[in-house]
């Protein structure tokens, strides 16, 4: 029989039992839809992670205080939170020549007001290298000058989101805004960075000199003189990263007088460690969805096999007749295989439609990044055909091996 004949015969047979065929394809529909959602979310997340890694750079180290744990496992007191200082920053700068940029920082959040406009935003108290480390560039205006840093000048550089909220279409440079109750002069605006790898608005930020933030923004509790809550650095050459990480750890242990065997009061992390956590979460979710999809496809496939076996038994006389009029084993096997594949292919097509819609909905409502492409759809289609082929083969073979005499004798 020609391909067209086989297809027509299969469609004719399935239409005779269309309800049963539709229900049988349900397992494949669910399986394929799950595959599409799974792969889309997986690929989307991976793309985001790649973007995140390249955005932050693989030349970067972040040092944060880590008060360690006392014997009861609880965190140390809050006074030990500021274990890092500007002196540590300077020491790293001078003692480790492979370091390109290094900056200490303080951070917090505040209410920012200009005329009737006000917004809640986060601030960063920074040193000069901070902008290079974080790839911030100035859109308009000037960076802080040396005097701003040394004498705690009340100047501020604002991110794009803050600028838009406060000034609308104006640049806002030269204007005075209040951070909390303290008036600051806007000296520059930052180039927009857009959404970050974790979905946050990176432009909803403003920067002030480190000393200024310590004196004016840290509030009544204050911080120890010279203290910073974070140190970031970049190395000139990415391949020095792990060497520098070791050097920084050794240097800080020495400076903080930490005895061998004692816990560090700081923690040095490179970007790959931060990303690893997120990748692990994504992988776990991908695996879960993958397991669901696989189980659905297997159940769907077993459903197809089951129905095809029923169909062979029901139509045994038809098979006998077809053999009598000249259908060979190959013709019969192809016919039943075509029916099984058609069920799973139709299920696959419907599953693709539902899966694509599902992936778009997931992207819209859960905020997870979703990447849909032709490969995903092709993969799903291939899965559905394979399912039909794999689970349809046994019933088809069984039909093809029937003895025409026995088959014709069945009532």
């Amino acid at each position, binding site marked *: *029989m*020609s391909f*067209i*004949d086989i297809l027509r*015969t299969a469609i*004719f047979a399935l239409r*005779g039992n269309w309800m049963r065929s539709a229900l049988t394809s349900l397992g494949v529909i669910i399986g394929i839809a799950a595959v599409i959602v799974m792969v889309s979310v997986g690929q989307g997340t991976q793309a985001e992670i790649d973007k995140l890694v390249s955005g932050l750079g693989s030349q970067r180290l972040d040092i944060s205080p880590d008060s360690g744990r006392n014997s009861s496992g609880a965190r140390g007191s809050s006074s030990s939170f500021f274990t890092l200082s500007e002196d540590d920053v300077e020491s790293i700068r001078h003692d480790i020549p492979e370091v390109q940029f290094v900056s200490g920082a303080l951070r917090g959040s505040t209410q920012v007001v200009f005329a009737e406009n006000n917004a809640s935003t986060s601030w960063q108290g920074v040193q000069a290298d901070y902008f290079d480390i974080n790839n911030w560039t100035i859109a308009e205006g000037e960076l802080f000058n040396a005097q701003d840093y040394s004498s705690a000048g009340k100047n501020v550089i604002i991110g794009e989101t803050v600028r838009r909220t406060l000034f609308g279409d104006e640049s806002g440079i030269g204007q005075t805004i209040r951070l909390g109750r303290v008036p600051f002069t806007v000296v520059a605006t930052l180039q927009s960075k857009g959404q970050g790898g974790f979905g946050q608005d990176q432009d909803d930020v403003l920067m002030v000199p480190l000393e200024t933030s310590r004196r004016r923004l840290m509030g009544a509790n204050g911080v120890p003189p010279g203290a910073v809550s974070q140190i970031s650095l970049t190395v000139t050459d990415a391949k020095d990263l792990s060497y520098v990480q070791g050097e920084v750890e050794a240097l800080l242990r020495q400076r903080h007088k930490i005895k061998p065997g004692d816990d560090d009061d700081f923690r040095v992390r490179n970007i790959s460690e931060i990303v690893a956590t997120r990748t692990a979460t994504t992988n776990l979710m991908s695996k879960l969805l993958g397991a669901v999809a696989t189980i659905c496809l297997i159940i769907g496939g077993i459903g197809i096999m089951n129905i095809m076996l029923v169909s062979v038994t029901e139509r045994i*006389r*038809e098979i*006998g*007749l*077809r*053999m*009598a*009029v*000249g*259908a*060979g*084993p*190959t*013709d019969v096997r192809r016919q039943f295989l075509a029916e099984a594949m058609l069920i799973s292919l139709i299920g696959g097509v419907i599953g693709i439609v539902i899966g694509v819609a599902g992936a778009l909905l997931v992207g819209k409502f859960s905020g997870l990044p979703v990447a849909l492409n032709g490969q995903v759809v092709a993969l799903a289609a291939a899965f559905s055909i394979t399912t039909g082929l794999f689970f349809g083969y046994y019933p088809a073979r069984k039909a093809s091996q029937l003895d*025409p*005499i026995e088959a*014709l004798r069945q009532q």
Partner: protein
Amino acid sequence: MTARTRDAVIVTRGLSKIYSPGSEAEVVALKGVDVRIERGEFVAIMGPSGSGKSTLMNLIGCLDTPTAGVYECDGIDVSTLDAEALATLRREKIGFVFQGFNLLPRMSALDNVAMPLGYARVPVSQRHELAQEALDSVGLAGRSGHLPSELSGGQQQRVAIARALINKPPILLADEPTGALDSKTGEEILALFKRLRDDNHTVVLITHDAEVAAHADRIFVMRDGEMHLEGAET
């Protein structure tokens, strides 16, 4: 008889069939049967149930291969053929007519008749025309669109005969073709076979009914797996 050049279309020599040979359930269904049927003959194979006539029919119909002996179907020795080659042989040489018609219930008469053409790889464009011709030849020109359930028993059997003839096989093998029909309709079907015989088809009729067998040119009588009697009626 002598005016027509005659050649044998069915020749068996020492044809034997043993089921489950060597085991305790061994059944000798056919013992060394010799048959020779010429092209354009109308013969009947008679015998009670268990006589081996069904086994003989299955062998002649290329549905089965013999345990021993030779069967030449239109010059082709079938004993060594595999299932695939047997199917090809059936398609080209044999048209089957069954007692129960065996029409596919969801297909129109025309589609039922056209069904074997797909296996013969006849182009789709020619199928309806060929099927319509076959229906015309059995006197069912106006019924091509009807489902089997909308036809009488005699009409259904005519559709089945049209289907058997569609690939123009030399041999028409009819297994109790009148068994499910009343005697008047049965006579009509037998008359149709005689007409086909006159068109140089070879018709082999398997029956247990002597009255039906009497319509044939020659009658073979089977008993206990052996050819008991071979006689010419006309």
